[in-house]
Protein backbone atom coordinates (compact mmCIF):
# COMPACT_ATOMS: atom_id res chain seq x y z
CA UNK A 1 0.00 0.00 0.00
CA UNK A 2 0.92 3.64 -0.16
CA UNK A 3 1.69 6.61 2.02
CA UNK A 4 0.16 10.00 1.30
CA UNK A 5 1.80 13.26 2.15
CA UNK A 6 0.67 16.86 1.78
CA UNK A 7 3.35 19.53 2.01
CA UNK A 8 2.33 23.13 2.59
CA UNK A 9 -0.70 22.62 0.33
CA UNK A 10 -2.43 25.84 -0.63
CA UNK A 11 -5.44 26.96 -2.59
CA UNK A 12 -6.44 30.49 -3.45
CA UNK A 13 -9.61 31.10 -5.43
CA UNK A 14 -9.35 34.14 -7.65
CA UNK A 15 -12.28 35.62 -9.51
CA UNK A 16 -12.41 38.90 -11.32
CA UNK A 17 -13.69 41.87 -9.37
CA UNK A 18 -13.54 40.09 -6.05
CA UNK A 19 -10.75 39.77 -3.51
CA UNK A 20 -8.94 36.40 -3.66
CA UNK A 21 -10.10 33.79 -1.16
CA UNK A 22 -7.52 31.64 0.62
CA UNK A 23 -9.46 28.43 1.02
CA UNK A 24 -6.52 26.29 2.09
CA UNK A 25 -3.55 27.96 3.76
CA UNK A 26 -0.62 25.60 3.90
CA UNK A 27 -1.56 22.13 5.04
CA UNK A 28 1.01 19.59 6.15
CA UNK A 29 -0.21 16.04 6.61
CA UNK A 30 1.45 12.67 6.44
CA UNK A 31 -0.57 9.47 6.35
CA UNK A 32 0.99 6.11 7.06
CA UNK A 33 0.18 3.33 4.66
CA UNK A 34 -3.28 1.98 5.48
CA UNK A 35 -4.10 4.78 7.88
CA UNK A 36 -7.56 6.34 7.99
CA UNK A 37 -7.36 10.03 8.70
CA UNK A 38 -10.46 12.06 9.43
CA UNK A 39 -10.40 15.62 8.11
CA UNK A 40 -12.91 17.29 10.40
CA UNK A 41 -14.18 20.83 10.22
CA UNK A 42 -17.23 23.04 9.77
CA UNK A 43 -18.52 23.70 6.26
CA UNK A 44 -16.38 26.18 4.37
CA UNK A 45 -13.20 25.29 6.26
CA UNK A 46 -11.45 24.06 3.11
CA UNK A 47 -11.62 20.34 3.80
CA UNK A 48 -13.49 19.49 0.61
CA UNK A 49 -11.17 21.70 -1.42
CA UNK A 50 -8.23 19.79 0.05
CA UNK A 51 -9.85 16.52 -0.96
CA UNK A 52 -10.50 17.78 -4.48
CA UNK A 53 -6.90 18.92 -4.82
CA UNK A 54 -5.64 15.48 -3.81
CA UNK A 55 -7.96 13.86 -6.34
CA UNK A 56 -6.81 16.25 -9.07
CA UNK A 57 -10.22 17.82 -9.59
CA UNK A 58 -9.01 21.20 -8.38
CA UNK A 59 -5.80 22.93 -9.37
CA UNK A 60 -3.21 23.52 -6.66
CA UNK A 61 -2.04 27.06 -5.80
CA UNK A 62 1.04 25.97 -3.86
CA UNK A 63 2.71 23.09 -2.08
CA UNK A 64 2.98 19.46 -3.04
CA UNK A 65 1.06 16.19 -2.90
CA UNK A 66 3.03 12.95 -2.68
CA UNK A 67 1.55 9.51 -3.20
CA UNK A 68 3.96 6.74 -2.28
CA UNK A 69 6.76 9.28 -2.18
CA UNK A 70 6.15 10.57 -5.71
CA UNK A 71 4.75 14.01 -6.45
CA UNK A 72 1.48 13.70 -8.37
CA UNK A 73 0.86 17.40 -8.66
CA UNK A 74 1.57 17.55 -12.39
CA UNK A 75 -0.62 14.57 -13.17
CA UNK A 76 -4.24 14.97 -14.25
CA UNK A 77 -6.96 13.25 -12.26
CA UNK A 78 -6.98 10.38 -14.75
CA UNK A 79 -3.37 9.48 -13.98
CA UNK A 80 -3.37 9.68 -10.18
CA UNK A 81 -5.09 6.41 -9.37
CA UNK A 82 -7.05 7.89 -6.50
CA UNK A 83 -10.51 6.63 -5.64
CA UNK A 84 -13.20 9.02 -4.46
CA UNK A 85 -16.57 8.17 -2.95
CA UNK A 86 -18.56 11.34 -3.54
CA UNK A 87 -21.00 12.77 -1.06
CA UNK A 88 -23.91 12.45 -3.50
CA UNK A 89 -22.69 8.99 -4.61
CA UNK A 90 -22.33 10.02 -8.29
CA UNK A 91 -23.86 6.78 -9.51
CA UNK A 92 -24.84 6.57 -13.11
CA UNK A 93 -28.67 6.27 -13.14
CA UNK A 94 -29.20 4.30 -16.37
CA UNK A 95 -26.71 1.58 -15.43
CA UNK A 96 -27.17 -1.30 -13.00
CA UNK A 97 -24.91 -1.63 -9.96
CA UNK A 98 -22.72 -4.15 -11.76
CA UNK A 99 -22.50 -1.91 -14.84
CA UNK A 100 -21.67 1.07 -12.65
CA UNK A 101 -18.77 -0.85 -11.14
CA UNK A 102 -17.60 -2.11 -14.54
CA UNK A 103 -17.86 1.38 -16.05
CA UNK A 104 -14.85 2.54 -14.08
CA UNK A 105 -12.78 -0.46 -15.10
CA UNK A 106 -13.54 -0.08 -18.79
CA UNK A 107 -11.85 3.32 -18.96
CA UNK A 108 -8.44 1.71 -19.09
CA UNK A 109 -7.70 -0.53 -21.99
CA UNK A 110 -6.16 -3.84 -21.21
CA UNK A 111 -8.87 -4.82 -18.79
CA UNK A 112 -10.12 -7.98 -20.44
CA UNK A 113 -13.80 -8.72 -20.22
CA UNK A 114 -13.31 -11.66 -17.89
CA UNK A 115 -11.06 -9.55 -15.71
CA UNK A 116 -13.71 -6.85 -15.38
CA UNK A 117 -16.34 -9.37 -14.36
CA UNK A 118 -14.02 -11.05 -11.89
CA UNK A 119 -13.09 -7.76 -10.26
CA UNK A 120 -16.70 -6.62 -10.05
CA UNK A 121 -17.71 -9.89 -8.44
CA UNK A 122 -14.79 -9.66 -6.05
CA UNK A 123 -15.54 -6.16 -4.82
CA UNK A 124 -19.27 -6.88 -4.68
CA UNK A 125 -18.49 -9.72 -2.34
CA UNK A 126 -16.25 -7.53 -0.17
CA UNK A 127 -18.70 -4.66 0.08
CA UNK A 128 -21.73 -6.92 0.32
CA UNK A 129 -23.48 -5.94 -2.91
CA UNK A 130 -23.95 -9.40 -4.37
CA UNK A 131 -27.73 -9.32 -3.97
CA UNK A 132 -28.24 -5.99 -5.66
CA UNK A 133 -25.84 -6.20 -8.61
CA UNK A 134 -28.70 -6.05 -11.12
CA UNK A 135 -30.57 -3.20 -9.42
CA UNK A 136 -30.44 0.36 -10.67
CA UNK A 137 -29.35 3.20 -8.37
CA UNK A 138 -32.85 4.70 -8.20
CA UNK A 139 -34.12 1.56 -6.49
CA UNK A 140 -31.47 1.48 -3.76
CA UNK A 141 -31.55 2.80 -0.22
CA UNK A 142 -29.08 5.54 0.72
CA UNK A 143 -26.96 3.04 2.61
CA UNK A 144 -26.80 0.75 -0.41
CA UNK A 145 -25.98 3.68 -2.68
CA UNK A 146 -23.15 4.63 -0.37
CA UNK A 147 -21.77 1.09 -0.48
CA UNK A 148 -21.99 1.03 -4.29
CA UNK A 149 -20.24 4.37 -4.43
CA UNK A 150 -17.51 2.99 -2.17
CA UNK A 151 -17.22 -0.16 -4.27
CA UNK A 152 -16.97 1.96 -7.39
CA UNK A 153 -14.05 3.86 -5.89
CA UNK A 154 -12.39 0.64 -4.72
CA UNK A 155 -12.85 -1.58 -7.75
CA UNK A 156 -10.00 0.10 -9.61
CA UNK A 157 -7.66 -0.72 -6.73
CA UNK A 158 -6.65 2.90 -6.08
CA UNK A 159 -3.52 3.87 -4.17
CA UNK A 160 -5.44 6.29 -1.99
CA UNK A 161 -9.11 6.39 -1.07
CA UNK A 162 -10.95 9.63 -0.40
CA UNK A 163 -14.36 9.65 1.27
CA UNK A 164 -16.39 12.84 1.07
CA UNK A 165 -19.01 13.00 3.85
CA UNK A 166 -19.84 9.32 3.36
CA UNK A 167 -22.58 9.14 5.98
CA UNK A 168 -24.18 12.54 5.80
CA UNK A 169 -27.19 11.52 3.70
CA UNK A 170 -28.04 8.42 5.70
CA UNK A 171 -30.68 8.15 8.38
CA UNK A 172 -29.62 7.27 11.92
CA UNK A 173 -30.11 3.52 11.67
CA UNK A 174 -28.31 3.21 8.33
CA UNK A 175 -25.55 5.45 9.56
CA UNK A 176 -24.65 3.03 12.33
CA UNK A 177 -24.53 -0.04 10.12
CA UNK A 178 -22.80 1.74 7.24
CA UNK A 179 -20.21 3.15 9.61
CA UNK A 180 -19.34 -0.29 10.89
CA UNK A 181 -19.24 -1.62 7.33
CA UNK A 182 -17.00 1.23 6.23
CA UNK A 183 -14.55 0.55 9.02
CA UNK A 184 -14.47 -3.18 8.31
CA UNK A 185 -13.95 -2.70 4.56
CA UNK A 186 -11.21 -0.15 5.04
CA UNK A 187 -9.44 -2.42 7.54
CA UNK A 188 -9.82 -5.44 5.24
CA UNK A 189 -8.50 -3.79 2.13
CA UNK A 190 -6.00 -1.56 3.90
CA UNK A 191 -6.28 1.54 1.75
CA UNK A 192 -4.68 4.75 2.89
CA UNK A 193 -7.82 6.82 3.38
CA UNK A 194 -8.87 10.38 4.03
CA UNK A 195 -12.37 10.86 5.36
CA UNK A 196 -13.74 14.36 5.00
CA UNK A 197 -16.57 15.18 7.36
CA UNK A 198 -18.20 17.87 9.44
CA UNK A 199 -19.64 15.24 11.77
CA UNK A 200 -17.40 14.66 14.79
CA UNK A 201 -19.08 11.39 15.64
CA UNK A 202 -18.19 10.04 12.19
CA UNK A 203 -14.58 11.14 12.55
CA UNK A 204 -14.17 9.96 16.15
CA UNK A 205 -15.58 6.51 15.45
CA UNK A 206 -13.88 5.81 12.12
CA UNK A 207 -10.55 7.57 12.04
CA UNK A 208 -7.17 6.41 13.32
CA UNK A 209 -6.20 10.05 13.57
CA UNK A 210 -8.17 13.25 13.16
CA UNK A 211 -7.08 16.54 11.70
CA UNK A 212 -9.35 19.36 12.84
CA UNK A 213 -9.50 22.14 10.28
CA UNK A 214 -10.74 25.71 10.40
CA UNK A 215 -10.40 28.57 7.92
CA UNK A 216 -8.03 26.57 5.72
CA UNK A 217 -5.64 25.78 8.56
CA UNK A 218 -5.22 22.55 10.49
CA UNK A 219 -5.80 23.28 14.18
CA UNK A 220 -4.75 19.97 15.63
CA UNK A 221 -3.78 16.49 14.49
CA UNK A 222 -4.06 13.53 16.81
CA UNK A 223 -5.84 10.35 17.75
CA UNK A 224 -9.51 10.75 18.65
CA UNK A 225 -8.50 10.48 22.33
CA UNK A 226 -5.86 13.17 22.03
CA UNK A 227 -8.30 15.49 20.31
CA UNK A 228 -10.93 14.86 22.93
CA UNK A 229 -8.70 14.77 26.02
CA UNK A 230 -6.42 17.68 25.25
CA UNK A 231 -7.88 20.00 22.64
CA UNK A 232 -5.16 22.32 21.36
CA UNK A 233 -7.32 25.41 21.37
CA UNK A 234 -10.78 26.79 22.04
CA UNK A 235 -12.02 25.98 18.54
CA UNK A 236 -11.12 22.30 18.78
CA UNK A 237 -12.53 22.08 22.30
CA UNK A 238 -15.78 23.66 21.21
CA UNK A 239 -16.10 21.75 17.92
CA UNK A 240 -15.50 18.25 19.29
CA UNK A 241 -17.83 16.91 21.93
CA UNK A 242 -21.59 16.55 22.25
CA UNK A 243 -23.11 18.26 24.19
CA UNK A 244 -20.54 20.99 23.63
CA UNK A 245 -17.90 21.75 26.25
CA UNK A 246 -18.66 24.50 28.81
CA UNK A 247 -16.36 27.44 28.15
CA UNK A 248 -16.29 29.90 31.05
CA UNK A 249 -14.17 33.08 30.94
CA UNK A 250 -12.42 34.10 34.15
CA UNK A 251 -9.37 35.69 35.77
CA UNK A 252 -6.68 33.78 37.63
CA UNK A 253 -6.61 34.64 41.35
CA UNK A 254 -3.62 34.71 43.76
CA UNK A 255 -4.32 31.16 44.91
CA UNK A 256 -4.13 29.88 41.33
CA UNK A 257 -7.83 29.38 40.78
CA UNK A 258 -10.00 30.88 38.06
CA UNK A 259 -12.42 33.49 39.31
CA UNK A 260 -15.58 33.14 37.22
CA UNK A 261 -17.60 35.51 39.40
CA UNK A 262 -17.37 36.98 42.89
CA UNK A 263 -18.52 33.77 44.50
CA UNK A 264 -17.49 31.15 41.95
CA UNK A 265 -13.85 30.09 41.87
CA UNK A 266 -12.66 27.02 40.00
CA UNK A 267 -9.46 25.05 40.54
CA UNK A 268 -7.16 24.77 37.51
CA UNK A 269 -5.27 21.69 36.32
CA UNK A 270 -2.03 23.61 35.66
CA UNK A 271 -0.36 26.57 37.41
CA UNK A 272 -1.21 29.86 35.68
CA UNK A 273 0.17 33.28 36.52
CA UNK A 274 -2.06 35.49 38.62
CA UNK A 275 -4.23 38.01 36.80
CA UNK A 276 -4.15 36.23 33.48
CA UNK A 277 -7.41 36.19 31.51
CA UNK A 278 -8.36 32.58 30.78
CA UNK A 279 -11.22 30.46 29.53
CA UNK A 280 -11.93 27.35 31.53
CA UNK A 281 -13.27 24.39 29.59
CA UNK A 282 -15.18 21.61 31.33
CA UNK A 283 -17.00 18.92 29.40
CA UNK A 284 -20.58 18.23 30.55
CA UNK A 285 -19.60 14.61 31.18
CA UNK A 286 -16.77 15.67 33.52
CA UNK A 287 -19.12 17.54 35.84
CA UNK A 288 -21.08 15.85 38.57
CA UNK A 289 -23.82 16.84 40.96
CA UNK A 290 -22.61 16.31 44.51
CA UNK A 291 -24.13 16.38 47.95
CA UNK A 292 -22.21 18.99 49.90
CA UNK A 293 -18.96 20.34 48.51
CA UNK A 294 -19.00 21.82 45.07
CA UNK A 295 -20.32 25.04 43.64
CA UNK A 296 -23.88 26.07 44.42
CA UNK A 297 -26.03 26.29 41.29
CA UNK A 298 -29.64 26.68 40.30
CA UNK A 299 -31.36 24.32 37.84
CA UNK A 300 -32.55 26.21 34.76
CA UNK A 301 -33.62 23.21 32.71
CA UNK A 302 -33.31 19.46 32.72
CA UNK A 303 -33.86 17.26 29.70
CA UNK A 304 -34.25 13.71 30.96
CA UNK A 305 -33.13 11.55 28.07
CA UNK A 306 -33.36 7.81 28.53
CA UNK A 307 -29.75 6.84 28.97
CA UNK A 308 -28.67 10.14 30.52
CA UNK A 309 -29.98 13.59 31.25
CA UNK A 310 -28.75 17.02 30.26
CA UNK A 311 -29.08 19.65 32.95
CA UNK A 312 -28.58 23.36 32.37
CA UNK A 313 -27.45 25.14 35.53
CA UNK A 314 -26.85 28.76 36.46
CA UNK A 315 -23.82 29.48 38.63
CA UNK A 316 -24.08 32.42 40.95
CA UNK A 317 -22.98 35.57 39.09
CA UNK A 318 -21.77 33.68 36.02
CA UNK A 319 -23.34 34.80 32.78
CA UNK A 320 -22.93 31.59 30.78
CA UNK A 321 -25.06 28.58 31.67
CA UNK A 322 -23.34 25.39 32.74
CA UNK A 323 -24.37 22.18 30.99
CA UNK A 324 -24.02 18.99 32.99
CA UNK A 325 -24.56 15.41 31.93
CA UNK A 326 -26.51 13.62 34.64
CA UNK A 327 -27.20 9.98 35.29
CA UNK A 328 -30.50 8.50 34.13
CA UNK A 329 -31.76 8.20 37.71
CA UNK A 330 -31.40 11.90 38.49
CA UNK A 331 -34.62 13.91 38.80
CA UNK A 332 -34.30 17.67 38.93
CA UNK A 333 -36.91 20.33 39.34
CA UNK A 334 -36.84 23.81 37.89
CA UNK A 335 -35.12 26.34 40.22
CA UNK A 336 -33.87 23.54 42.46
CA UNK A 337 -30.61 24.36 44.26
CA UNK A 338 -27.83 21.85 43.63
CA UNK A 339 -24.09 21.62 44.06
CA UNK A 340 -21.86 20.82 41.13
CA UNK A 341 -18.21 19.74 41.09
CA UNK A 342 -15.70 19.49 38.26
CA UNK A 343 -12.95 16.91 38.01
CA UNK A 344 -9.92 19.20 38.02
CA UNK A 345 -7.73 16.71 36.15
CA UNK A 346 -10.21 16.78 33.26
CA UNK A 347 -10.56 20.55 33.21
CA UNK A 348 -8.88 22.48 30.40
CA UNK A 349 -7.66 26.02 30.59
CA UNK A 350 -7.11 28.25 27.57
CA UNK A 351 -5.55 31.64 27.13
CA UNK A 352 -8.47 34.03 26.61
CA UNK A 353 -6.60 36.09 24.03
CA UNK A 354 -4.95 33.46 21.81
CA UNK A 355 -7.35 30.62 22.56
CA UNK A 356 -4.43 28.22 22.96
CA UNK A 357 -4.46 25.45 25.55
CA UNK A 358 -2.27 26.22 28.59
CA UNK A 359 -0.28 23.15 29.57
Amino acid at each position, binding site marked *: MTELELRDLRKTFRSRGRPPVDAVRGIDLALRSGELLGLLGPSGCGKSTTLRMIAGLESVSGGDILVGGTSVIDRPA*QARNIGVAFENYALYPPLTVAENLAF*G*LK*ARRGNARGDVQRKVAEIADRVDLTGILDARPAGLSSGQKQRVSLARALVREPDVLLLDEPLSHLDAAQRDTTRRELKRIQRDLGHTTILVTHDQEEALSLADRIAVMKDGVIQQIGTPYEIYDSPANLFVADFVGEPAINLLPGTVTDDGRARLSDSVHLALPVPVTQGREVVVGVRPEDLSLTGEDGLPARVVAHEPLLEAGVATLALDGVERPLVVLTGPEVRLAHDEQVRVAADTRLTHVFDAETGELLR
Partner: protein
Amino acid sequence: MNLRKRLLGALADLALILYFVFALFPIAWMVILSLKPANQLFSTYFSFTPTLGSYRTVLGDSEGIPFVRFFVNSLVVSVGAVLLSLLVGLPAAYASARWRFKGSENLMFTLLSFRFAPELTVIIPLFVLYQKLGLFDTYVGMIWVLQLVTLPLIVWIMRSYFADLTPELEQAALLDGYTRKQAFFKVALPLVKPGIAAVSLLAFIFAWNNFVFPLILTSNEAQTVTVGALSFLGGDRPKYNLTAAAALISVVPPLLLALTIQRYLVRGLSFGAVKS
Protein backbone atom coordinates in the same frame (compact mmCIF):
# COMPACT_ATOMS: atom_id res chain seq x y z
CA MET B 1 -69.85 20.35 0.70
CA ASN B 2 -70.04 17.51 -1.77
CA LEU B 3 -72.64 19.33 -3.82
CA ARG B 4 -70.52 22.43 -3.87
CA LYS B 5 -67.53 20.44 -5.03
CA ARG B 6 -69.50 18.88 -7.85
CA LEU B 7 -70.92 22.21 -8.89
CA LEU B 8 -67.43 23.69 -9.02
CA GLY B 9 -66.27 20.70 -11.05
CA ALA B 10 -69.08 21.14 -13.52
CA LEU B 11 -68.28 24.84 -13.85
CA ALA B 12 -64.64 24.06 -14.49
CA ASP B 13 -65.68 21.54 -17.14
CA LEU B 14 -67.89 24.12 -18.78
CA ALA B 15 -65.07 26.66 -18.82
CA LEU B 16 -62.75 24.09 -20.40
CA ILE B 17 -65.32 23.22 -23.04
CA LEU B 18 -65.72 26.88 -23.88
CA TYR B 19 -61.99 27.22 -24.20
CA PHE B 20 -61.73 24.15 -26.43
CA VAL B 21 -64.41 25.52 -28.71
CA PHE B 22 -62.58 28.81 -28.88
CA ALA B 23 -59.24 27.13 -29.58
CA LEU B 24 -60.43 24.45 -31.97
CA PHE B 25 -62.96 26.46 -33.95
CA PRO B 26 -60.43 27.92 -36.42
CA ILE B 27 -59.11 24.44 -37.10
CA ALA B 28 -62.60 23.05 -37.59
CA TRP B 29 -63.30 25.97 -39.93
CA MET B 30 -60.19 25.13 -41.92
CA VAL B 31 -61.17 21.47 -42.18
CA ILE B 32 -64.65 22.43 -43.42
CA LEU B 33 -63.19 24.92 -45.85
CA SER B 34 -60.79 22.37 -47.25
CA LEU B 35 -63.59 19.88 -47.84
CA LYS B 36 -65.89 22.30 -49.67
CA PRO B 37 -66.16 22.22 -53.43
CA ALA B 38 -65.04 25.45 -55.10
CA ASN B 39 -68.56 26.57 -56.05
CA GLN B 40 -69.90 26.33 -52.48
CA LEU B 41 -66.94 28.08 -50.88
CA PHE B 42 -68.85 31.16 -49.80
CA SER B 43 -72.07 29.53 -48.70
CA THR B 44 -72.76 30.31 -45.07
CA TYR B 45 -74.55 27.02 -44.38
CA PHE B 46 -72.74 24.01 -43.11
CA SER B 47 -74.49 21.84 -45.63
CA PHE B 48 -72.31 21.12 -48.63
CA THR B 49 -71.11 18.15 -50.63
CA PRO B 50 -67.77 17.22 -49.08
CA THR B 51 -64.99 16.49 -51.51
CA LEU B 52 -61.31 15.69 -51.31
CA GLY B 53 -60.78 17.56 -54.54
CA SER B 54 -58.84 20.38 -52.86
CA TYR B 55 -56.33 17.93 -51.42
CA ARG B 56 -55.98 16.22 -54.80
CA THR B 57 -55.36 19.55 -56.51
CA VAL B 58 -52.84 20.71 -53.90
CA LEU B 59 -50.85 17.49 -53.95
CA GLY B 60 -51.26 16.99 -57.65
CA ASP B 61 -49.48 20.15 -58.79
CA SER B 62 -52.36 20.97 -61.14
CA GLU B 63 -52.54 24.71 -60.38
CA GLY B 64 -48.92 25.21 -61.43
CA ILE B 65 -47.90 25.51 -57.80
CA PRO B 66 -45.37 22.83 -56.74
CA PHE B 67 -46.76 22.31 -53.25
CA VAL B 68 -45.09 18.91 -52.80
CA ARG B 69 -41.74 20.52 -53.45
CA PHE B 70 -42.47 23.24 -50.88
CA PHE B 71 -43.31 20.49 -48.44
CA VAL B 72 -40.04 18.67 -49.12
CA ASN B 73 -38.18 21.99 -48.85
CA SER B 74 -39.71 22.61 -45.45
CA LEU B 75 -38.64 19.17 -44.30
CA VAL B 76 -35.08 19.54 -45.58
CA VAL B 77 -34.65 23.04 -44.23
CA SER B 78 -36.19 22.40 -40.79
CA VAL B 79 -34.47 19.08 -40.18
CA GLY B 80 -31.21 20.52 -41.46
CA ALA B 81 -31.49 23.55 -39.19
CA VAL B 82 -32.19 21.40 -36.13
CA LEU B 83 -29.33 19.00 -36.86
CA LEU B 84 -26.85 21.82 -37.40
CA SER B 85 -28.02 23.52 -34.21
CA LEU B 86 -27.60 20.31 -32.23
CA LEU B 87 -24.12 19.81 -33.63
CA VAL B 88 -23.03 23.31 -32.65
CA GLY B 89 -25.37 23.90 -29.74
CA LEU B 90 -24.81 20.82 -27.56
CA PRO B 91 -21.08 21.43 -27.02
CA ALA B 92 -21.82 25.13 -26.53
CA ALA B 93 -24.53 24.39 -23.97
CA TYR B 94 -22.27 21.96 -22.13
CA ALA B 95 -19.34 24.36 -22.03
CA SER B 96 -21.45 27.24 -20.78
CA ALA B 97 -23.05 25.06 -18.12
CA ARG B 98 -19.76 23.73 -16.80
CA TRP B 99 -17.31 26.59 -17.13
CA ARG B 100 -17.47 30.32 -16.68
CA PHE B 101 -14.96 31.82 -19.01
CA LYS B 102 -14.25 35.35 -20.09
CA GLY B 103 -17.30 36.73 -21.86
CA SER B 104 -19.31 33.54 -21.46
CA GLU B 105 -22.34 35.32 -20.08
CA ASN B 106 -22.20 38.00 -22.76
CA LEU B 107 -22.02 35.32 -25.41
CA MET B 108 -25.04 33.56 -23.99
CA PHE B 109 -26.97 36.79 -23.79
CA THR B 110 -26.11 37.66 -27.38
CA LEU B 111 -27.43 34.29 -28.43
CA LEU B 112 -30.63 34.88 -26.51
CA SER B 113 -31.06 38.31 -28.05
CA PHE B 114 -31.51 36.61 -31.44
CA ARG B 115 -34.78 35.34 -30.06
CA PHE B 116 -36.22 38.54 -28.76
CA ALA B 117 -35.11 40.82 -31.57
CA PRO B 118 -37.82 40.77 -34.27
CA GLU B 119 -36.70 39.07 -37.44
CA LEU B 120 -37.94 42.02 -39.47
CA THR B 121 -35.22 44.28 -38.07
CA VAL B 122 -32.49 42.31 -39.83
CA ILE B 123 -34.33 41.02 -42.84
CA ILE B 124 -33.36 43.76 -45.31
CA PRO B 125 -29.59 43.61 -44.75
CA LEU B 126 -29.85 39.82 -44.77
CA PHE B 127 -31.67 39.99 -48.10
CA VAL B 128 -28.92 42.12 -49.62
CA LEU B 129 -26.19 39.87 -48.17
CA TYR B 130 -27.88 36.72 -49.39
CA GLN B 131 -28.26 38.15 -52.91
CA LYS B 132 -24.55 39.02 -53.01
CA LEU B 133 -23.33 35.76 -51.47
CA GLY B 134 -25.49 33.57 -53.68
CA LEU B 135 -27.34 32.19 -50.70
CA PHE B 136 -30.71 33.55 -51.82
CA ASP B 137 -33.26 30.80 -52.43
CA THR B 138 -30.89 27.97 -51.41
CA TYR B 139 -31.13 25.23 -48.78
CA VAL B 140 -27.81 26.28 -47.26
CA GLY B 141 -29.03 29.85 -46.97
CA MET B 142 -32.28 28.85 -45.29
CA ILE B 143 -30.63 26.40 -42.88
CA TRP B 144 -28.12 29.07 -41.99
CA VAL B 145 -30.65 31.80 -41.31
CA LEU B 146 -32.86 29.45 -39.31
CA GLN B 147 -29.98 29.10 -36.85
CA LEU B 148 -31.24 32.43 -35.50
CA VAL B 149 -34.38 30.55 -34.50
CA THR B 150 -33.15 27.11 -33.48
CA LEU B 151 -29.68 27.67 -32.03
CA PRO B 152 -30.56 29.97 -29.10
CA LEU B 153 -33.41 27.66 -28.16
CA ILE B 154 -31.21 24.57 -28.14
CA VAL B 155 -28.27 26.19 -26.38
CA TRP B 156 -30.36 27.77 -23.62
CA ILE B 157 -32.56 24.81 -22.88
CA MET B 158 -29.76 22.25 -23.09
CA ARG B 159 -27.61 24.43 -20.89
CA SER B 160 -30.06 24.08 -18.05
CA TYR B 161 -30.22 20.33 -18.62
CA PHE B 162 -26.43 20.06 -18.36
CA ALA B 163 -26.39 22.37 -15.36
CA ASP B 164 -28.87 20.06 -13.62
CA LEU B 165 -26.47 17.13 -13.95
CA THR B 166 -24.21 16.97 -10.97
CA PRO B 167 -20.60 17.48 -12.10
CA GLU B 168 -19.53 14.63 -9.81
CA LEU B 169 -20.85 12.16 -12.37
CA GLU B 170 -18.27 13.34 -14.87
CA GLN B 171 -15.60 13.81 -12.22
CA ALA B 172 -16.04 10.21 -11.14
CA ALA B 173 -15.52 9.22 -14.77
CA LEU B 174 -12.35 11.34 -14.94
CA LEU B 175 -11.00 9.64 -11.84
CA ASP B 176 -11.69 6.28 -13.46
CA GLY B 177 -9.38 7.35 -16.26
CA TYR B 178 -11.83 8.61 -18.87
CA THR B 179 -10.84 11.68 -20.87
CA ARG B 180 -12.90 14.87 -20.76
CA LYS B 181 -14.28 14.05 -24.20
CA GLN B 182 -15.29 10.57 -23.10
CA ALA B 183 -16.87 11.98 -19.96
CA PHE B 184 -19.01 14.21 -22.17
CA PHE B 185 -20.00 11.54 -24.69
CA LYS B 186 -20.34 8.58 -22.32
CA VAL B 187 -21.67 10.24 -19.19
CA ALA B 188 -23.24 13.65 -19.77
CA LEU B 189 -24.75 13.24 -23.24
CA PRO B 190 -26.71 10.02 -22.65
CA LEU B 191 -28.28 11.54 -19.54
CA VAL B 192 -29.71 14.54 -21.41
CA LYS B 193 -31.27 12.47 -24.21
CA PRO B 194 -34.82 13.28 -23.08
CA GLY B 195 -33.87 16.94 -23.14
CA ILE B 196 -32.44 16.63 -26.62
CA ALA B 197 -35.68 15.01 -27.81
CA ALA B 198 -37.83 17.72 -26.29
CA VAL B 199 -35.75 20.64 -27.50
CA SER B 200 -35.34 19.17 -30.99
CA LEU B 201 -39.09 18.96 -31.34
CA LEU B 202 -39.55 22.54 -30.20
CA ALA B 203 -36.81 23.77 -32.50
CA PHE B 204 -38.28 21.81 -35.40
CA ILE B 205 -41.71 23.36 -34.85
CA PHE B 206 -40.28 26.86 -34.69
CA ALA B 207 -38.20 26.28 -37.83
CA TRP B 208 -41.14 24.70 -39.66
CA ASN B 209 -43.50 27.54 -38.74
CA ASN B 210 -41.09 30.30 -39.64
CA PHE B 211 -42.62 32.64 -42.19
CA VAL B 212 -40.57 35.81 -42.57
CA PHE B 213 -37.24 34.27 -43.56
CA PRO B 214 -38.56 32.07 -46.39
CA LEU B 215 -40.87 34.88 -47.50
CA ILE B 216 -37.98 37.27 -48.13
CA LEU B 217 -35.00 34.98 -48.63
CA THR B 218 -36.47 32.40 -51.02
CA SER B 219 -38.44 32.64 -54.23
CA ASN B 220 -39.12 29.22 -55.65
CA GLU B 221 -36.35 26.66 -55.31
CA ALA B 222 -36.09 26.68 -51.51
CA GLN B 223 -39.53 28.07 -50.64
CA THR B 224 -41.27 26.39 -47.72
CA VAL B 225 -44.92 25.46 -47.06
CA THR B 226 -45.66 28.45 -44.87
CA VAL B 227 -45.09 30.78 -47.78
CA GLY B 228 -46.06 28.25 -50.44
CA ALA B 229 -49.54 27.72 -49.03
CA LEU B 230 -50.27 31.37 -49.68
CA SER B 231 -49.60 30.99 -53.40
CA PHE B 232 -53.14 29.64 -53.76
CA LEU B 233 -54.51 33.03 -52.75
CA GLY B 234 -52.94 34.73 -55.74
CA GLY B 235 -54.36 34.82 -59.24
CA ASP B 236 -57.79 36.02 -60.38
CA ARG B 237 -59.74 34.36 -57.58
CA PRO B 238 -58.40 33.47 -54.12
CA LYS B 239 -58.78 29.71 -53.68
CA TYR B 240 -59.39 29.49 -49.95
CA ASN B 241 -60.23 25.80 -50.14
CA LEU B 242 -56.79 25.02 -51.57
CA THR B 243 -55.02 27.22 -49.02
CA ALA B 244 -56.89 25.46 -46.24
CA ALA B 245 -55.99 22.02 -47.59
CA ALA B 246 -52.33 23.06 -47.97
CA ALA B 247 -52.23 24.47 -44.43
CA LEU B 248 -53.75 21.31 -42.98
CA ILE B 249 -51.28 19.10 -44.85
CA SER B 250 -48.43 21.20 -43.53
CA VAL B 251 -49.58 20.61 -39.94
CA VAL B 252 -49.04 16.87 -40.30
CA PRO B 253 -45.24 16.57 -39.75
CA PRO B 254 -45.01 18.57 -36.49
CA LEU B 255 -48.13 16.77 -35.24
CA LEU B 256 -46.73 13.30 -36.02
CA LEU B 257 -43.39 14.21 -34.50
CA ALA B 258 -45.02 15.53 -31.33
CA LEU B 259 -47.06 12.34 -30.95
CA THR B 260 -44.10 10.00 -31.42
CA ILE B 261 -41.84 12.02 -29.16
CA GLN B 262 -44.44 12.64 -26.44
CA ARG B 263 -43.03 9.93 -24.21
CA TYR B 264 -39.66 11.68 -24.12
CA LEU B 265 -41.30 15.07 -23.68
CA VAL B 266 -42.85 14.06 -20.39
CA ARG B 267 -39.60 12.49 -19.20
CA GLY B 268 -37.73 15.51 -20.48
CA LEU B 269 -39.79 17.81 -18.35
CA SER B 270 -39.54 15.75 -15.17
CA PHE B 271 -35.93 14.76 -15.31
CA GLY B 272 -33.30 14.66 -12.59
CA ALA B 273 -30.24 12.40 -12.44
CA VAL B 274 -29.43 12.74 -8.77
CA LYS B 275 -31.85 13.90 -6.13
CA SER B 276 -30.09 15.96 -3.53
